[in-house]
């Protein structure tokens, strides 16, 4: 059973440092493959720290581990992931005449992997 969310990929300090440390390092790989969810949504969906979920957009599908967003950083219904390979796999190729693929505010379906 999947549920629709809005995904916002973005910069984090660790992801930024990871670019300099090397994209094949554990630190960069770990930072860019963890999905942040609002604690209320985690509780409602019965998700625990480290559980894996499948995210599907119109054009791609990825599997990631989840973590609760700190404090009230994320409102319900919104997900966050650091920029990287996985976030880009959910982007479409169409830029709607702008040169810029829609890279933030993506509609995604979230499904818990049993």
């Amino acid at each position: 059973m999947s549920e629709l969310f809005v995904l916002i990929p973005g910069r984090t300090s660790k992801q930024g440092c990871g670019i300099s440390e090397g994209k094949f390092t554990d630190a960069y790989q770990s930072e860019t493959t963890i999905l942040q969810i609002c604690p209320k949504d985690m509780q409602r969906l019965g998700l625990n720290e480290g559980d894996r979920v499948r995210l599907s957009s119109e054009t791609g599908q990825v599997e990631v581990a989840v973590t609760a967003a700190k404090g009230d950083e994320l409102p319900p219904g919104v997900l966050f992931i650091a920029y990287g390979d996985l976030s880009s796999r959910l982007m479409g190729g169409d830029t709607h005449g702008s040169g810029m693929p829609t890279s933030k505010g993506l509609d995604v379906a979230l499904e818990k992997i049993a």
Partner: protein
Amino acid sequence: MSTATKNQAATDGSLKIVQDATCTFCGCVCDDIDLSVKDNHIVEAKRACVLGKSWFFNHYVDQRPSCLISGRPASIEEGIERAAKILAGAKYPIIYGLSDTTCEAQRIAVGIGDWIGGNVDTTTSVCHGPSGMAFQGVGEVTCSLGEIANRGDLIIFWGSNPAESHPRHFTKYSLMPKGMFLPNGRKDRTCVLVDVRKTKSAKAADIFLQIKPRKDFEALWILRALAQNLSLDPAEVEDETGVPLSAWQDLMGRMKQAKFGVLLFGMGLTMTRGKHLNSEALLALVRDMNAYTRFVAKPMRGHGNVTGADNVVSWQTGYPFGVNMSRGYPRFNPGEYTTADTLARREADAAMIIASDPMSNFSQAARERLLAIPYISLDPKETPTTRGATVAFTTATYGINTAGTVYRMDDVPIPLRPAFDSPHPSDFEILSGIERRVKALKAAVRL
């Protein structure tokens, strides 16, 4: 100045100090970093932020060969020859990246684009490219970061998280400095953050407005209406933006009363549905505000010399990014000549990627196309893009190993003061070699 010690190899265990070195990790381009260098490694970076420290401390000289052809070590001359043949022989070659190299190297890359009749596009197209389109539609009421430090009494960040992406922006330019007209620094300023997420930057703000996702355009037009004293339906405004009308009215009151208002905007606007229309709305709001007071807008630029890329491509072609040279004169059309599109539509048949990693950052369709065509990469580090390149050059790191010029996010040029030499060639040297060979190959075809 300690740069007089230019680049002697500090391999004898002695400590070399480079004063006022320039950090090129982000668009702040802080040029007040004091580096301590020992055995060709930076051991201290005074005043650098967390991103800057990581940038300086993680630049060991890469032990990979300076050139790989199809994954096998080759001489630089062989690499240049192969690269020139790929580019000169293609029907629709593209050049992309450029935001993490010097203006001098960018200039040569544009020249190559002209010789091969290809596209020249930079990472601006997937950063503030939509703002570049909006500048052409609305104009830009702008200023330098120094003016913000000395005058800005109302600082609004919109769709930007400087605490994580530009950590020294608050302390060096926008919030903390005691300026000519702001003797008490932070106490003389009001800071507002508008964002979908309550990011780490919210702690630095006096007022945080949490809007609904993908409602920036609507929120900006509500402010434009309030600037004109138009009456709005409170229920509709809150339902649309997630923020009460009273909060928008309060913000507009502060904007009109400010002596020098500043709107600093990030990719929360440009990467979200609406894109250039979001940036246009913001620039139009700032233009409107100048009927009441002095108000300026500035995009928060990410890469160290992405602003330089805009400047150099504009000097050379008249347009900032997404430029096509196939007819012998430059044409500009985002969506047609931009790299995300030419790759995803499988139009480009050869590429040169300079200091950028589209194999990590582009859509799946674009990545698949890039992997299917011959391409050249120039990068100091190994990335998914360098791993797939037909010809991969390992180059010296700009600012750490090579001198040159970069542009800060407010279009102010800053010189680089390198710390130590690299055994690898600079982007400028490789590109100059490719340009020479491309010119010869193209001249031979014309004969």
